[in-house]
Structure formats: structure tokens, C-alpha cells
């Protein structure tokens, strides 16, 4: 209780040191989680996080904060499941309430083929121990009485994949909670520190150049999401990534009437209502590559159109803001985690596309383990950068809530 009235700084700022054992580029949730697990699980505390903007200014503060593990593939499911488990304990572990609301998550199917796609997920989820099942109109109506389940919409809802442990979290709080925990371990967080280049010699990154000077590094981690290609290029490593904006918007608050996360792949929209009462609505990725973070009117109109297909009574509800993040899309919608043989101390934690936020704890934990032990944890082995040369792509694309 006393803590409620204590005014402690969440994280401190300081000068760049000349050298760190690990330099992490990008202080979003992935970078912060990696730093946190390096320090807390492996005792590696000579770690710097370099962030070009303010803390949480990238996708960590731009996503729709949905957390779930009802993925499709035997590679994806255990990985996302491990992330949900970490998220469940994270508020307690970090002593910082991230408002993780496991309110339940519904993926809607409006066509036969979508029903079959969801069934594959339900089956695989159940075999691998994830709470997830197919439900039909009667049960959907009980869970989401506000939704239009009549035959009026152009694509009426036929069924849904119901995932009770799925939900939403306060995304900024995750950033702040990890940052505070890193700070308490004397890990340095450098905001407004933009990486401009890297000195690569004999297959290793020796140092990182920034707008505030040069930092020598034992290892370097690329955790920069949509900007991953730019940072990788500095280490002379091309990637398989294309950056696409992803837009979202938020409405004025209403009294709570929707306590499930609703996703429709057919309508390319997802909707949830926050504890403040606002509706957060997300779109599919923009149909063209771009680093621009300006919202567009057609996408805003699409979000509104599809939201009203599901909740036509909300026509008078006002949109307050729209924004965009930049997603690092890979050919198979699966991430790229690991080390490329060409540069042995350059670790990639990229290619998260639209799924990055959900996986930050487990990705950070695995990358930290990889750095500390030199061994690739089983959970991330399928996501190795080498898979493109061996043709072992991951089939998560078929389950994406977005499509390219």
C-alpha cells in the first residue's frame, strides 16, 4: 500500500558506457524482455538498450495488445503458449500490474473454408494442451450478446474458435514494467539513441555507432521490428522481410458491453473494449510496403465498415484516433530468431509481423538463453534464419488474422 504513494523513478537515464557485453538495438518489448532475462536468469547485466525514440515509441505502443496462443502449427502453438504462461505471471514477477485481462478470444468464421481453417487450429490446440474449441451461434450469442448474429450481414457469422485464456493487456505497462525491472538490475536504457552503423570485422560486430557516439559490444541484438532490415543491413546481413504498415484506431468510451476479443479474418478486423470503455479496432496490414506511419482514410473506413457489420448499433460511436505501426512481414508469417553464420555475434529477433507483442516474454527469454549459453532453445529452433535456404518454412501463414 505504501508503494502507492512512493515516487520512485521507473528508470534512469545516463551516459553511454564505452562497452557493453550485450547491446540491444530497439527498446520495445522484445528488446526489454531480452535484457530482463539476460539479467535475471543469466546474471548478464552489462547490457545496453538503444532506442531511437522515447521508450515504447515503436510497435510496443502501437499494437492492439491481444494475447493468445491458439495458433495453427506444432511449431507455433507451444511457443505462443509459453508466452501466455509468462504473461500470466509477469505482473507478479515484476511487481507491476500490466492489467492482463484473460477475457477470452473469439476468432469468427464467416465461410466454410474459414470454419475448416479454425477447426485445424482447434484440433491442434487441443492435442497440444491449449484451451481452444469450436463454438457455434448459440454459444457465441451467449458470450457476445451485442454482436449481430443474424443472417443480415453479407457474410453472416457461422462459427468461432473460442480461446478462453486469450485476452488483452495494457501494452505500455509491459514496456514500463520491464524497463523498471531492467533499471533495478543496472541495465542501461538509452532513449533517443539512434543506431547509425556498425563496425563489422572478421565476421563479428565489434561496435555499434550511434548519434551519441560509438559503443563496443560483445554481442548485438536486432529487436527493431519494422526497421529490422535497416539495422541488419548495417551488419551486412540481408533479411527476408518486407515492412508493411498496420493500422488501428480507438473510439470514445462507452459503458462496457463487450468483454471478449473479437477477430474476423474474413472481415479483416479485430475489436475489443478496454477497461476504460474505448473500443480498439485493428485492420489488416496495408496492401503495400512502406515505412510511413501515417494513417490512411480508406483503411479507417474499412475498420469502421467491418466493425459495423459485427455491431451495427455502434454507427454513432466516434473514432478518436487512428495510428499505424510498421510490421516486419516474412514469407511464412513466422519470425526469424537466431544467429546467421556470417556474423557470429549478431542475434536476430525479428520478422514478427503482426504477432510481435504476444511473444515478447518468451522470445526475450529464448534469445537471452541463446546469448548466454550459445545453445538454441528448442522452442525457437524452427524459426532459424537458415530455414529459407533449406526450405523448411513454417505454416503459420494459413492461420493469420491478416493476409498479404
Amino acid at each position, binding site marked *: 500500500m505504501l*508503494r*502507492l*504513494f512512493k*515516487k520512485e*523513478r521507473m*528508470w*534512469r537515464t545516463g551516459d553511454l558506457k564505452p562497452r557493453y557485453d550485450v547491446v540491444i538495438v530497439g527498446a520495445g518489448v522484445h528488446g526489454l524482455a531480452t535484457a530482463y532475462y539476460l539479467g535475471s536468469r543469466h546474471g548478464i547485466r552489462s547490457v545496453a538498450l538503444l532506442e531511437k525514440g*522515447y*521508450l*515504447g515509441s515503436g510497435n510496443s505502443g502501437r499494437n492492439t495488445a491481444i494475447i493468445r496462443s491458439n495458433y495453427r502449427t*506444432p511449431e507455433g502453438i507451444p511457443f505462443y503458449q509459453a508466452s501466455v504462461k509468462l504473461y*500470466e505471471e509477469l*505482473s*507478479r514477477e*515484476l511487481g*507491476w*500490474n500490466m*492489467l*492482463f*485481462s*484473460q477475457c477470452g478470444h473469439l476468432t469468427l468464421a*464467416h465461410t*466454410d473454408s474459414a470454419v*475448416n*481453417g479454425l*477447426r*485445424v487450429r482447434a*484440433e*491442434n490446440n*487441443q492435442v497440444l494442451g491449449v484451451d481452444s474449441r469450436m463454438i457455434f451461434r448459440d454459444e457465441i450469442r451467449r458470450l457476445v450478446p451485442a*454482436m*449481430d448474429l443474424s443472417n443480415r450481414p453479407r457474410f453472416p457469422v457461422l462459427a468461432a474458435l473460442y480461446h478462453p485464456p486469450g485476452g488483452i493487456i495494457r501494452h*505500455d505497462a509491459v514496456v514500463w514494467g520491464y524497463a523498471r525491472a531492467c533499471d533495478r538490475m543496472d541495465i542501461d536504457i538509452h*532513449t533517443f539513441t539512434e543506431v547509425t552503423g556498425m563496425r563489422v570485422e572478421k565476421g563479428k560486430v565489434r561496435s555499434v555507432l550511434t548519434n551519441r557516439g560509438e559503443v563496443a559490444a560483445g554481442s548485438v541484438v536486432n529487436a527493431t521490428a519494422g526497421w529490422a532490415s535497416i539495422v541488419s543491413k548495417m551488419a551486412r546481413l540481408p533479411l527476408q522481410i518486407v515492412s508493411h504498415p498496420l493500422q488501428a484506431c480507438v473510439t*470514445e*468510451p*462507452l*459503458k462496457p458491453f463487450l468483454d471478449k476479443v473479437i477477430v474476423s479474418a474474413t472481415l479483416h478486423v479485430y475489436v475489443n473494449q478496454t*477497461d*476504460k*470503455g474505448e473500443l480498439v479496432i485493428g485492420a489488416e496490414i496495408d496492401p503495400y510496403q512502406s515505412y510511413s506511419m501515417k*494513417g490512411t*482514410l480508406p483503411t*479507417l*473506413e474499412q*475498420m469502421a465498415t467491418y466493425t*459495423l*457489420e459485427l455491431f*451495427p*448499433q455502434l*454507427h*454513432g*460511436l*466516434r*473514432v*478518436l*484516433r487512428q495510428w499505424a505501426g510498421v510490421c516486419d512481414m516474412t514469407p511464412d508469417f513466422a519470425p526469424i530468431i537466431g544467429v546467421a553464420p556470417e556474423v557470429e555475434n549478431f542475434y536476430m529477433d525479428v520478422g514478427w509481423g503482426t504477432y510481435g507483442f504476444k511473444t515478447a516474454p518468451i522470445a526475450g527469454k529464448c534469445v537471452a538463453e541463446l546469448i548466454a549459453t550459445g545453445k538454441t532453445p528448442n522452442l525457437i529452433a524452427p524459426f532459424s534464419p537458415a530455414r529459407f535456404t533449406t*526450405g523448411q518454412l513454417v*505454416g503459420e*501463414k494459413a492461420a493469420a488474422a491478416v493476409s498479404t
Partner: protein
Amino acid sequence: MSVDERSETIRFEFCGKPVEARAGDTVASALYRSGQRIFTRSFKYHRPRGLLCLSGKCPNCLMNVDGVPNVRACITPARAGMRVRHQNAYPSLENDWLAIAQRFDWLMPVGWYYKTMTYPSAWHAAEPYIRKIAGLGEPPPAGSEGGEYEHNYRHAEAAIIGGGPAGLQTAVELGSRGEQVMLIDDQPALGGHLRYSRNSGVAAAELIADLIGKVQKLSNVEVLQGCYCFGLYEGNLLGIVEPNPHPNAAERLIHLRTRRVVIATGAYEAPLLFRNNDLVGIMLSTAAQRLIRLHGVAHRVPDAGLLSQAGARLEWDGGKGAFVSVDLPSHVAAVGDVTGASFIAASRLPPEQVMASKRAFVCLCTDVSSKDLQDAIAEGFDHIETLKRYTTATMGPCQGRMCQLSAISVCAHETQRSMGATGTTTSRPPNPSVTLGALAGARHHPTRRTPMHYEHDALGAVWMDMGEWKRPRFYKTQTNSEEKACVEEEYRAVRERVGLIDVSTLGKLDFKGRDCGKLLDKVYAGRLSDLRPDRVRYAVLCDEAGIMLDDGTVSRLADDQYFITTTTGNLEFVEQWLEWWLVGTGWDVHITNMTGGVAAVNLAGPKARDVLAKLTSCGLDTKAFPYMACRRAEVAGVQALLMRIGFVGETGWEIHFPAEAGAYLWRTLLDAGREFDIRPFAVEAQRLLRLEKKHVIVGVDTDALTNPFEAGMGWVSKLDKEDFIGRAALRRLSGEELKQILAGFIMNEEALPEDGAAILVNGRLAGRVTSARYSPVNRKAVGLAWVPAELARPGAEIDVRVGGRLARAHITQQAFYDPEGARLRM
């Protein structure tokens, strides 16, 4: 427009009581006249709030009007019969039980919810209660009717936002030069602040009258009165809302594309920070008037949201006491008060005085006080963006208009930085806020129907969606409407007699030119240049990774003409893919998309030949018209392309013909088949028929990573071809050991797996069923499934999940029906 004292009074209802209003009244002005002083209760502490801005910019008069929540009463015209209700207060605005929250504000310092309830169980217990009291207006009930909205699209050389003196002046200047100008003004009448400022005087009134007169004379200047611009998007696209454009629409969203934008949005006033600055009546009290008039204390804020959206940078100008826009993009200009040009630094209450008072509300939308901001800054949220996210100041319905400047000044003061160094938060559209209804517009969702659509309807079709197309799933009969029985009847008709299915949704592309063979050889995995005229070949399209993208038939109609079908969903992609590979080759190929203009049916079954022979003079016996041949011929007087192919595994013809003859030929074929007891069959029966033949459906049995070798169709790619798309990958794959294979299976017991069911081997997840149906021939369920390659041998046993338990099945090599394909060639 001002209130007309002589006009007749109208009545509306406020919380069940009648309220009188006159023409020109807003809901708020009428309520105020009726004695109402409290208009809403605040978000968190339920403090009483009264009229503040009277311009739709603040959160203090949000009400429910005719069921729509969060309506700004101060800019909503009063209409007879409207039903207005208060919100966020119970039981009444004057006596709100949750006002007790004010007593406990000390328990809720900024960020209290992050610092408490860190145990998941505590948070899970508390969250439902927090949700109960969150939010503002009540959502309209499910099933309530939506308003009507519409969109339109306009173009102009210049758009001027704001009809005050600066906007009018610019309109006259540009208009006189002959430019096509649109002037967008959100007020009921032109004139801006000169309509109501007391000190504007007679000269100003004359100036305005003169400018308005000039604008009205210019036929090339169009005024959009009472319309607000909420966004300036890339490519000079303006989003504008016109309320009540006509009695049948609530709002119209105008998409205005212009070459230039002139922003003349002026300035507005934001509240000052002092103790209890949020009290009801504060803006109207003489104290506040005196404060403003005698002490010159006021926050005037340039309304620069659109400039910011356009990419201008906001820079603090100490002399003006305002953030002014600099580095405007070349196509955007600013005139008038929005530039801050006429501003002089206003004297303010000294910051220390503000800081000492914790009840100075910075953010009226979510009840954030100056003390909350100070505390947050002390905790390290000292960047204006993190301060905003941590305290939620500027994130409410006012979109920061009332609070942004105060928040910045508190932040600057606490961090001992300048206003400029503190900076502003990013301005994002829409600003002002805009309804989901206006954004969505009329919500058109196209539906594609085949030329035989209404024939199917009359035959009892039960419909399904396939992309934008409607297709019959099965036909109800007079005696039966149950899907399983109907499908089986349709199935038996095809296997035993003859059936007819509408396949018009197939993509259809016509290829003409000398080099068609070259293009097809390059893009398809198979060889098509050596296809003889009058022959058909099955072909698969792969990408450079060797992944199957689509399949279909390729018919050679002449040396320089091919006709290709694609799957229903992939047509657009395939057409664009082929066009793309054609670019830059210089080859003589012309691709025409025939899909909408050509109807197609498949007539199949042992009696198909007998039916067709009644309608065409084309030779149909196997010698004259062998399997995988095509002919152009008349059928019932209609020019048609006939292909002898057999997706369903029986003797049959796919007949393509002009769409306008669709219904006629459909009926004629059914009539001709009556003596053979023909039946129309639909998608479900077709899926069963083809499954018994183990014919793969791309996109159903394959997914985004399937290559032809895994799908058991390696034969479709001709690796000895010189070059084609996917050759490098397919050559590599052809030499690699397969990990998984698409295999057929038969259930060992009476159990029917669903499509998508999991396959287990030794208790571990090992694959999935892609399609499974009860096979009348096998008297067991059969299906296709992805299984580990080592199990893809006849007789190997797998476990299939059926209804949550495991059922045994075994792998088969051959098709489940007529494995030799004899019936196709009969």
C-alpha cells in the same frame, strides 16, 4: 444562425421531462434556458460538469440523443420530439451516487492500478468491478437500427478550411484568380469569431458582410457550410463530414482531393489551470470574465491539428505564447489565427500557483490533475508522450484540445525545460472525432451471382459463400430438406444416371497470339506448347519457391489460341501473375478475362452422353471425342466450348457458353435429361464425388506451403523444360526426402472425421485431415490427410480425432472409386 426569439417553440424530451426550444437553439442552449446547469459527470470522480466551450470541443456536455451516446449537446441542433438523456450519472446529474469517488481520490494517485493488484488473482477479482463503472455513454442495444450514411467524392484546385475572416479573404483571392475553390466551414454561418466576439464592432461586421458578398458572387467558390474537416491525408485527401445532408441521411462523408490546401482554422480557447477550474459555470461566471478581460489571462490555442497532420512541425513561439506551425509542406498553406500571427503572449497564472493546487484539472475527459502530472513526471514519465500514455491526459473525447497546452506547460515547468524542448504529442486524424457510421458510409458489400442463380433458387438451392460468389451447397427437394440425404441423392444421380452442376464461378481466361505456348510453358509447371489443338491438359501453377498457387485446365483451341480455367478464388491473382510474366518479353500474347461473360456447367454421369446427344450434332462417342479433348460446337443452338474432363470421375463434359444463354441452356439440359432422371447437383455432392477420386482441391487440401511432390502430384511439373517459374526450387525439391505427404485414408470403423481433424501417430500430433466424407461406395468414411512421409504407404495405420476421441484409419494408395479411371473414358 442565432436563436430567433419570435419563432415558434418546439419541444423535446430531457430525461422524461419536456423542454422548450426555439429555432436556432442547440440542445445545450435550450437546456440551459430551462435551468439545467449540470450537463454531465466526469469520467473518474463523477464531478459535476457544466457548459464550457460551446463549440463541441470539450467533453462537458456529452449526452445521449435518440439512443446515440456521447453526443455533444452544445453543437447539436434542437429538434422537435428528440429524446435526450444524461449519461455517466445515477440516478441523476444533480445527485450522482458515484460522486463519492471524489472522497477517495487520495487512494487513486496517478498510475495506482499499475502499482496495486499485481497478483493475478487480485486483479482478476477487481477487474469486473472496474469495468462496471468504466466508460461514458450507454451503448445502443444490440439489434437497434443504424442510421443512414453516405459517401461522395469531390475534386477542387484549392480547399480552404475555415470560413472566418482569413479563410474568406483567401477564398476571395483564389476565387478571383479563377481557381476552383471549396471553402469548408464548420459553423452555421460564415464569419468565424467575428460572428460573436464583442469587441469586433461595426467595422468588422461590414468587413465580413463584404467578404461574404464577394464569395457568394464567385461561382467558382463553393461553400460547404456546417461541414467539418477531420483529416488531411496523403495526396491532399481531405475527409469532411456534412451533417444531415438531406432528411434520409444522418451524415455524408465527402472525400475531397485538391491540389492545394489552405488552413484557416483559427484559434480556440482552452481552460486555465487553477483550483477547481472544472466547476460548473466556471466559464460563464463574472469571475472568469474579469480574469480574462481585466487580467488578460487566457489560453488561446491555434487550431493547428490539420497542419500537424499535413506534416508541419510545431515550434514554440515565446513571443506569441503559442505553438506555431513551421516547415509546412509545399501544397499546404496557413492563414489567420491558426498561424498564431496575431497572438501576443498572454499573461498566465504563475506556474507555482498552479502546481500548489492539486485540484487544477488538466484533463477534463479523464480527470487528470496537475498533481497527477507532477507525480508522473517524478516517476520518470518526463517525456510528453510517455506522460500522456501514463496519465491518459489528452487521450479522451476532447482529443487534447482542452488540455494539451496545460499538460505541456506543467511538463516543461516540472522538468525545467522550455515549452519548445518539451514539445507536443503527435496529432493524428481524425480530429475532430468522426462517427463509425460516416466512415463506413452506405456499406455496400458486393455479391456475385452466376447467370443461373435464380434457376438454382427455384430448384431449392441452399446457398453458401465462396469469396464474393454465391454457390448452391445442395438442393432441397420436395420430400427432403436434410443436407445429408439430399447430398447423397445428388451423388447417386451422378454415379448412376446423370447430374448437372453450375461451374460458372471458375476463372476463365482466353489467350490469343503466336507466343501463348511460350508464356504458358514459362509460367505453368507443365508443358503446354506441345498441346495439340482440340486437346485439354491439367496444369498447375507454382511460385519460385515451388509452392502450388493454382490449378486448372488448359484447352488449346487453335495454334494461336488457348482457353484456361482457374479456381474460383484465384482468378484475379492468376490473371495478374500471367500478365506480370508477360511484361517486357515482347511476346505476342493477349489475355482476356472471360469469367463474367461465360457461363459453364458440368454434365456428368453414365447417361451424360445420351443427354448431350439430344442437343448437339457434335460426335460424342469416345473415338470422336475422347477423354481430355475439347471441341467447339452448338448445344441447343448455343455456341459452346465442350471439354471432356472428369473431376467427379464419370463420363462428362464441361460446357462453356455465353453467359446470356446461362438460364436457357441450364433449363434445356435439365429438360433433355428428364427421361434419364437427371438431377442438378451442387458443391457438397461435387466435393464427395471428387474425393472418392482423390482429386485434390488447391487451397482446400493444400495450403500456403504445399509443393506438388508432397501433394502426390510431382508429375505435373516438367523439370526438363528449359526454364519456368519455380523450376529451380522444384528441381531441388524433387531430390529431397519428403517430410509429409497428402495421402488417402479409409476409416477402419464407423466414424466420420470433420475437415481439419488432427491425425496422431503414437499419441503425437502428426498431421491433419483436409477433407473427409462418408463414401457410399466404400461404406466407410474416406478422406485426404497430411501424414508423415514414412506413413504414406498402403495399410499404414493412423489415429484420427473424431469428436475428441481417437479412431483408427489406414492409408490407401489408390483412388477410392474407379482407380483405373475406366468410367471417365467410357
